[in-house]
């Protein structure tokens, strides 16, 4: 029974904390259910969360496995995924970063 449960879940990390979620859960949902509302930091410094939920608005973008600017509402969680919210890299834009164009 424990095996069956393990097969239907994946383990990810959100801001360094280990979290177990159901297979197929999108990153945005996992982060929200973890209690986080502030996904990214806007240009003027205010916190932002998901708006459109379907990949249009880019408000839910997060740093996933070191890659900034990923749309969390479109990405399903996979085993071992490392998710960082409201990262500095999003607002300060490091030189040579892989920011989406």
């Amino acid at each position, binding site marked *: 029974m424990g095996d069956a449960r393990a097969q239907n879940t994946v383990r990810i990390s959100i801001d360094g904390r280990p979290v177990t*979620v159901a297979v197929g859960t999108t990153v945005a949902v996992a982060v929200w259910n973890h209690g986080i*509302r502030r996904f990214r930091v806007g240009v003027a410094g205010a916190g932002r969360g998901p*708006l459109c*939920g379907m990949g249009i608005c880019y408000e839910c973008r997060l740093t996933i496995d070191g890659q900034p600017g990923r749309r969390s509402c479109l990405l399903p969680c996979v085993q071992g995924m490392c998710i960082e919210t409201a990262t500095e890299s999003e607002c300060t834009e490091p030189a040579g970063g892989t920011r989406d*164009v």
Partner: protein
Amino acid sequence: MSEPDLDRSEQQPRGSGRPSDPSTESGDCLSGTAYESAELPTHQQLATTNQRRREFRSDARRALGRPAGERFKTKSGLNIVVVGGGPAGVAAAVTAASADPTARVTLIDDNPALGGQIWRQGAAPEPAVGARKWLRRLDQLGVERRCPATVIDTPSPGRLVVADAEGTSELAYHRLIVATGATERFLPFPGWTLPGVLGAGALQALVKGGLDVRGLRIVIAGTGPLLLAVTDLVRRRGGRVVALAEQADFSSVMTFGRSMWRSPSKGLQALGFAQSLWNVPYRFATWPARAEGEGQLERVVLVNPLGEANVVECDLLACGFGLRPNVALAQALSCDVVDGRVVVDDRQQTIVDGVYCAGEPTGIGGLDNALLQGRIAGLAAVGRSEEVRSLSRRRRREQRFVAVLEKAFRLRSELRSLPETDTIVCRCEDVTWGRVREFDDVRDCKLKTRCGMGPCQGRVCGGALEFLKGFRPETPRPPFFPVTLNTLAPTGASERTPASEDAPEE
């Protein structure tokens, strides 16, 4: 010795007649001196865009304007590409593939799973029986699925550039069916950027994907039948809908309700919604004036035309001010777009040969309309004109529903005065209403404020400014969606795709 005739004839107009041709041609537009220099390139731009469009259309006529079954079928069958895996796209792909077994049908969608928003499948699947039937047919017929993948360019008729996890690739088509659906319209009001304020469709999508709303106090606001569907869903998942604010008047909503009874499937839907609205504080002619909270949403102020304000404490505000057809791809393909809708004939054929359009891009009509138009487009694409004609009566009936829907949930003018000077309009670049307000031209506004130049490329503020200022969205330039340079040139500089020529700017 003398100049060739050709040159002289070109020069003739300049010497003869009125001395100031340019001013008589466009004098009216240039009367405002302050904008004189800023407006000239816009007109030129328009001319070149129209020129390019005409060229694309005539190229399409040459390349794709042959009736199905004449030439393509003799060898390897038609290549049919459907963009958009919602009901319209799925119906189009299934119908085309079953009507013409020699056709090679490819279905592209940018979500990981097909079904679009209404048939969204997630971690907690909904019992969408209709969806399962169509999706099963898709596999039985051998339709090739490409998702998640995004069309980022339309270099010439018959060719698309598609980006996916592996990079970009070209996809050839003889027939293209555009079924790109619709997105929600968001309107700015003070506090709408607070985390916890999201779209009504967004809440629906996220809850279907497993978002936990148990015990949360939720306000649902905006306009249209979508609000009822969202209310129904979140209540079934344990959320507490503390207010449902519809901006339209009670009488308009009732007119709409009566029209739903005319169709059996819609009548049942209406009945279901009516049942789920039991005990929900449903207010008409009411809209959110502001959202407040420290760092995240805590309360919403709802107002009505009498100026009465009502403060509602809540954890979530889901608001959607109607749906907007996604016409960007159709625009890029040089299709005619009037009043934000793609122009099609009875066969879902756009004015560009070989290009069809089905579902919400032709006007917001909901599930039944999308399925029907998808079927018609699929049949038309493989040249089954008689079957297309047999569906025309049903098509007209659905078209009437589109008109009723639009009229009943028209946005009221009071919503135009919601944003205040410091209210953010462009969420990507944090451009305020105070800065945007003064502009009369969308291009001018964009260049001087960066409004609409962020990652969403105006997909959010575009809908707001269309309503607030009457700005028409511009024809998109490739890449239509942000892509990483890595996607464009995966293995260094050696591989050149057509898309990489249009270096993305920012």
